[in-house]
């Protein structure tokens, strides 16, 4: 999906000095992608641990509260790394990202995954006023855990498909 204003923006971004530096320095894009994938590994694995625990597939010895406490933090602290590396990649190849349907889908899915993750600690979802004394997961928490697993999986697929759905000019 593209619009004239988006296309003009991409053309302008592509003509900036910083974009030229990224385009012309051959190691910047693969190095940035490497950091991006390592950050994806941290976020996806943290989400998986939390989600599997909430669903009840792993580790009944430790409480859900302990799991949320241990694994929500790395998700929030790694997202800025994903964002920063994503911005570098986008500045280097604006049309390849912003005008790409796979990229656009990925951003929508990412927004949903962030919403799902932040809902996990809401009293209304947890069924208690304090998320740290959850004894049993509510149905709402389980639904969010399944949604989170599906969303992060889809985000990784969409991310890989950016390279194949590229119809832009760079």
């Amino acid at each position, binding site marked *: 999906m593209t619009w004239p204003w988006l296309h003009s923006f991409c053309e302008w971004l592509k003509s900036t000095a910083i974009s030229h530096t990224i385009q012309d320095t*051959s190691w910047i*894009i*693969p*190095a940035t*992608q*490497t950091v991006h*994938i*390592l950050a*994806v*590994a*941290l*976020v*996806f*694995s*943290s989400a*998986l*641990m939390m989600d*599997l625990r909430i669903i009840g597939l*792993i*580790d009944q*010895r*430790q409480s859900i509260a302990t799991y949320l406490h*241990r694994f929500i933090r*790395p998700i929030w602290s790694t997202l800025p790394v994903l964002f920063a590396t994503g911005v570098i990649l986008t500045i280097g190849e604006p049309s390849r990202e912003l005008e790409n349907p796979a990229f656009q889908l990925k951003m929508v899915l990412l927004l949903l995954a962030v919403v799902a993750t932040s809902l996990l600690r809401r009293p209304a979802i947890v069924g208690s006023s304090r998320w740290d004394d959850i004894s049993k997961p509510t149905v709402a928490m389980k639904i969010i855990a399944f949604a989170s697993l599906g969303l992060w*999986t889809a985000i*990784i*697929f969409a*991310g*890989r*498909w950016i*390279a*194949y759905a590229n119809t832009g000019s760079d």
Partner: protein
Amino acid sequence: MDPVLQWLYDMPFSAAIREDAFLFPFLESIHVLAIALVVGSISIVDFRLLGIASKGRPITELTQVVLPITWAAFAAAAIAGALLFSSNAVKYAHNAFFIAKMALLLLAFANMLVFHAITLRGIHDWDRTKMPPWPVRAAGGLSLLIWAGVVACGRWIGFTINSL
């Protein structure tokens, strides 16, 4: 070596992966997803060995939960990776970053073997310690570095191979 690789290249399934517009990116996505889980889950153990996270938990308890996920993901990554390899076997086998990636995988394996055979013997003394002794921390740090290298080499393969 090359005749074997060429034979692999000529297999019908290799040709299918090479020629199908959907199959190659699909296998790549599975490969990336599985590697993300391998690296992400092993990092949970590594951060514990380094005394950085999950410090309240005995190491053996943590590994019982995490390592089955790591191994399952590794199996998926290896199967998807082998299929991707077969689609262009000769070129991958001659790619420096592919060779480096395989070498780093061997190194990760060696690090794990040394950890199991030597370091793990004294586990009862430091299983619950928040900050394990230095050989344990070294194994954790080394593992993080090796896996970061595996991911970097993997990504660089895509930029140095002119497939298809």
